[in-house]
């Protein structure tokens, strides 16, 4: 279990204040030139737009059933067909981005905050605090997130908040590991020694002195985690432990319709599956772009 990972290669911005604008602006401009990032961003923004305004251009009410037209194949009237109780699949796919795009980013945000704090503490104090916390985090990472989440959600009961908290806390150790290894390198630098000589408090040194200098690896890790959070939320919803009915959420729709695909009703699941695939790939492309921008 080595503590060094990808973040070790990420150069921290120069610690002197006069230069701080430079590298960040450079990262910003290299993001704008990155085809990977822009493609990913475009896909994500498309789904964000659907989440925000989908209701206004969805042809039907995504929750309105119409039993007579149940399981109708794609047609001019219903572009993506209808599901088993006659709901318009096209409208549901468009509005279905809403819950996952609320839950996954909030979970990622929680993971980032908790993971950054943990990483700063373990990296800064090292010693016994670090050993104990690192072992616990390692044990936590030894089992797949989906299974940790399953256990916690079953114990706590299903709700959006539970899903956010559980996924957020499951991802925190991974972010903590990245932050910790960045902090380990930073704390040896002169500006930290200077802060300590000025008798700044440990909290001040960690959050005011070190934190700004480890932002790049945190940003990269956060964008990567967002992809995994979407993966995890979709998977939990598919298994019935995530977003709950009657939400038109994609994973949930697949879970309630896939039992019938043996009967050839492919349209009830294919478009939801492609929607998840596009969102996950979009986020990962954007994350790849962010990673590239900080590393070049």
């Amino acid at each position, binding site marked *: *279990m*080595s503590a060094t990972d990808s973040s070790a290669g990420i150069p921290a911005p120069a610690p002197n204040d006069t230069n701080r604008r430079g590298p960040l602006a450079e990262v910003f401009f290299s993001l704008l030139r990155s085809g990977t990032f822009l493609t990913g961003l475009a896909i994500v923004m498309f789904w964000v737009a659907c989440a925000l305004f989908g209701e206004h251009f969805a042809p039907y009410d995504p929750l309105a059933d119409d039993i007579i037209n149940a399981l109708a194949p794609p047609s001019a009237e219903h572009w993506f067909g209808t599901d088993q109780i006659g709901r318009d699949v096209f409208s549901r796919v468009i509005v279905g981005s809403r819950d996952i795009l609320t839950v996954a980013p909030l979970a990622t945000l929680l993971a980032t905050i908790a993971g950054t704090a943990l990483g700063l503490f373990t990296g800064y104090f090292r010693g016994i605090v670090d050993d104990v916390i690192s*072992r*616990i985090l*390692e*044990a*936590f990472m*030894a*089992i*797949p*997130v*989906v*299974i*940790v989440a*399953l*256990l*916690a*959600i*079953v*114990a*706590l009961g299903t709700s959006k908040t539970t899903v956010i908290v559980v996924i957020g806390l499951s991802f925190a150790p991974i972010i903590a590991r990245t932050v910790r290894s960045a902090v380990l390198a930073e704390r040896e630098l002169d500006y930290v020694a200077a802060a300590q000589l000025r008798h700044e408090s440990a909290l001040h040194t960690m959050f005011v002195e070190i934190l700004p200098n480890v932002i790049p690896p945190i940003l990269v890790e956060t964008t990567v985690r967002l*992809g995994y959070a979407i*993966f995890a939320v*979709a*998977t939990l919803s*598919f*298994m*019935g*432990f995530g977003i709950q009915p009657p939400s038109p959420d994609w*994973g949930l729709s*697949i879970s309630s319709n*896939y039992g019938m*695909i*043996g009967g*050839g009703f*492919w349209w009830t*699941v*294919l478009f939801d*599956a*492609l929607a*998840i*695939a596009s969102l*996950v*790939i979009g986020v*990962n492309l954007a994350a*790849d772009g962010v990673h590239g921008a900080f590393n070049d």
Partner: protein
Amino acid sequence: MALSLVTLFLLSIMVFLGGQVLPGNVGRAILGPFADQRAVDALNHSLGVDRPLLTQYWSWISNFIQGDMGTSYIFRSPVAPFVIDALGNSMKLAAVAFVLVVPIGILGGVIAALNLNRPLDRIISLGGLSVTVLPEFVTGIILILIFGVWLRWLPISAAWPRDAGFFTQLYYLILPSLPLFLVLFGYIARMARSGMIEALDSDYTRTAVLKGLPWPTVIWRHVLRNALLPTITVIATQTGYLIGGLVVIETLFRYQGIGSLIFTAARGKDFPVLEAGILTIGIVYAVATLAADFLYSVLNPRIRLGTDQ
């Protein structure tokens, strides 16, 4: 070794907390909100969940180590046979996925590295990366639609007929193993590719070329041997993810493995089964990690067993 044991111990505490402390009143949860309080108390007493936590943990974990995984709340029978059967089934599915993905993933990575930055490399790297990030149930659904519904080549459920022979079982396991294959392919190919690139760029490869060895010999004897070491570690660490994927895949394909056992237990709040299943997965993961460390040190004499990292 010691590290794995510490990890397993901490995992067992987390599982214990998640399964026996967080749910609160187990008897109430099983009997429902309208059951008589005396019945709830009696059930709690017979399940042993009214004892102090430390006693509960100790009796749970010491029984577990001796092979007694407790009694299922739902089936009212010992958990261990369920877990062992399910683990066996999951191993079959995982084995099919591994047998497919390890050679093909390594081959993909090697081909990509030998064609560095050419279109073939781009296709393998980008393609591998794209399918790796997709949730298994998404690739699973798309594969079911293609091979099971449209082409009708493969059965869409992994539940084979009774008394099915080896090849029939294999036939039923191909489609379920494909989503796992896709997830793992990207990781393995990427590791093999970067290992190859590093080895191709090394001094010993240049020496081998300069002393006039034929190119295939250079690749086979000098590059591959060094390039594939890190890949072995990745393959072992992916076992954990593989098992996470099994929960979803086994549910999707109605396959009686450890994943669907955990899923069913989670649905029915059958905590003893849930705890036993998760702890078993933790043990499998720890064993796989140990095996990887061991294999790595056997293959790489520069690493000595016993020295940490």
